[in-house]
């Protein structure tokens, strides 16, 4: 609670700094009748930023180190001699005491924790005072410094501009740093996994039946080929068989045949498909499409039909991807210069011949790029396959059979009651890394293709 109170204090004083800076600037105008370099509010912002930013940075750092300082203080008390030597027991007692002291917990489960509550209370209060004092000091120091710099010709406006730029840069860096962090942790855990399981077995093995304990060099059921196959079968084959023709044809219709009025309402409707939450598609696949396909397969006597099938997941995923393919194809076809179309029509070809023989071939690189992007989305898609594709690793080309995918197995491996460093959990990271690399490559290739294509018609 002290943190929140402090935050309000800082912001409140910041507001006062803003008002002060602004009033000071206004006073310049009144006193000297001079023109300010910057508007009074910029002076206000300058002063407020100087007052508020250093204490906030301090508090951020402080928040990270203060628990350790508090614990040190508690441990330096004589009562700490009585704590058990075992690190885990010790930590659990201390953390319980801290929870009670800060009001997050009411009673102790470990009697010993009670002793430390007053000690923690004292430590927390001690450091709270330090925090408040340091914050207020920093705030006034910054505010005063800024106040002394305010002059009629002071360029508060450019200074504030620089701060704004810095804030924007930080925001974008956060995204980049997060990405790098995620990739680094994927790589790190994957390396740990490969210390237990041979990468050869993982990448080329054909049996997927992960075991909790592994025998080095033996077959541990971590062969991911069936998962890769399932992913490709659903995301890159079945889904694309549905999405490419439908997406392409709707793009051709929308760009070449539809009257503007029709295009105006049809295009947004198509794009709504892309906004449907994937879990809704998952329901649809699992509850409507999958049973219907199973009944159909049973009726015509197809063996191996299952209530969870590659076809159900793939078809629904294909439908989900249609707007993606169609909008990329739409853009590509629209980017083909009209002179191509006119050239073909002037040769005496019909509209559909022109589309088939000139427009689509000319737009093909862009369309291919769009399809690659769609594939990369499809193979990373999770919800539909979790709900409709099944869990059994299966190297089959029978679309009515149940197959499993990389994403499904990641979910499966991580939702069990597993130790974090068991090979089963770590395998999820290895699968994630493979998926990441493949989608990254697909995206890079696709973007290059599309870019090259755009340049061709610049």
């Amino acid at each position: 609670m002290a943190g929140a109170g402090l935050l309000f204090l800082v912001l409140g004083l910041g507001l006062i700094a803003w008002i002060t800076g602004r009033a000071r600037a206004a006073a310049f105008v009144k006193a000297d009748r001079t023109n300010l370099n910057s508007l009074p509010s910029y002076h206000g912002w300058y002063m407020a930023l100087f007052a508020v930013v250093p204490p906030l940075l301090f508090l951020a750092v402080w928040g990270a180190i203060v628990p350790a300082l508090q614990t040190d203080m508690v441990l330096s008390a004589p009562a700490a001699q009585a704590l058990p030597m075992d690190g885990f027991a010790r930590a659990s007692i201390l953390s319980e005491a801290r929870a009670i002291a800060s009001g997050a917990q009411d009673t102790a489960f470990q009697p010993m924790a009670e002793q430390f509550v007053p000690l923690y209370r004292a430590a927390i209060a001690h450091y709270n005072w330090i925090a408040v004092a340091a914050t207020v000091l920093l705030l006034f120091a910054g505010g005063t410094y800024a106040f002394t710099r305010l002059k009629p010709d002071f360029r508060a406006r450019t200074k504030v501009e620089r701060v704004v730029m810095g804030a924007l840069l930080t925001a974008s860096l956060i995204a980049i740093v997060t990405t790098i962090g995620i990739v680094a942790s994927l790589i790190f855990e994957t390396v740990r996994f490969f210390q237990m399981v041979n990468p050869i077995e993982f990448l080329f093995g054909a049996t997927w039946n992960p075991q909790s304990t592994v025998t080095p060099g033996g077959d541990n059921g971590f062969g991911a080929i069936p998962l890769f196959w399932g992913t490709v079968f659903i995301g890159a084959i079945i889904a694309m068989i549905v999405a490419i023709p439908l997406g392409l044809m709707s793009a051709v219709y929308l760009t070449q045949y539809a009257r503007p009025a029709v295009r105006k309402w049809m295009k947004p409707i198509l794009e709504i498909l892309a906004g449907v939450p994937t879990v809704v598609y998952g329901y649809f696949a699992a509850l409507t499409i999958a049973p219907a396909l199973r009944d159909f397969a049973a009726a015509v006597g197809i063996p191996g039909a299952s209530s969870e099938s590659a076809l159900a997941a793939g078809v629904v995923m294909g439908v989900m991807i249609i707007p993606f393919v169609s909008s990329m194809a739409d853009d590509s076809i629209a980017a083909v210069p009209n002179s191509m179309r006119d050239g073909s029509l002037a040769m005496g070809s019909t509209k559909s011949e022109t589309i088939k023989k000139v427009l689509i071939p000319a737009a093909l690189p862009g369309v291919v790029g769009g399809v690659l992007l769609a594939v990369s989305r499809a193979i990373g898609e999770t919800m539909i396959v979790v709900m409709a594709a099944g869990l059994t690793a299966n190297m089959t080309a029978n679309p009515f059979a149940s197959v499993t995918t990389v994403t499904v197995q990641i979910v499966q491996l991580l939702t069990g009651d597993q130790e974090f460093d068991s090979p089963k959990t770590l395998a999820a990271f290895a699968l994630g890394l493979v998926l990441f690399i493949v989608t990254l490559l697909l995206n890079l290739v696709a973007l290059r293709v599309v870019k090259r294509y755009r340049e061709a018609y610049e």
Partner: protein
Amino acid sequence: MTDDNRRNEQLARIARNNMGEAAADVPSEPIGLADPKISARGVNVFYGAKQAIKDVSIDVGMDNVVAFIGPSGCGKSTFLRTLNRMNDTIPIARVEGDIRLDGEDIYSPKMDVVQLRARVGMVFQKPNPFPKSIYDNVAYGPRIHGLASGKAELDEIVERSLQRAGLWNEVSDRLSDSGTALSGGQQQRLCIARAIAVDPEVILMDEPCSALDPIATAKIEELIHALRGQYAIVIVTHNMQQAARVSQRTAFFHLGTLVEYGKTSEIFTNPREEKTKDYITGRYG
């Protein structure tokens, strides 16, 4: 009969129009030819409510090259596109009047636009080869119209068309290269070869040299000379020297009307209309 009467009446009106009062004593070049390939009478073109072509009548013969000149925006391209019904591809465009190819009304419901465009080929201002090989560009028309019965015949058509377009010697050893990789002038000759490949009767060219350098322009002009007589050729140009060099007849358009139409030599030496004279002497436009 009534049809013919109407046409003759219009013809007379246009002729009167074209002569103008002051020039009534100059022997006039008849608008009507004895045996026109294309004959247009009373053509109006509208883009929405805006009229771009006003009551234009003109005959194009088989044996000469006709140049359309006039200031930018006067409707040359618009009128040219009425001759192969390319205006059909512009939704807001509407064409009125009577245009005949070998006496056949090209705007009649019985006319097959696809066939018409095979008979009346077109070359555009900006070279627009398809992003296909040189061979496929030229073979495009013959393929869609089924003009060749086999590979050998298609090869022959492609070679003959490229030869007529004066491009064969430059590309014969790289027919599978992309047509878009050629130079601008070569691309334009490729487009002419592509148009020739379907064996049209008329070739319409809309400022075919405006995107080309002088050397490439000279090549195209040579080519037009060589093609004269085999096809009826109409060329739109904003370059009066070019009109004088390549055409035997010239039509001067202004603000959507056909101001004057006659032998090129006469238009350039002794125009009947004041406006034509002003334009040719460069007083405006």
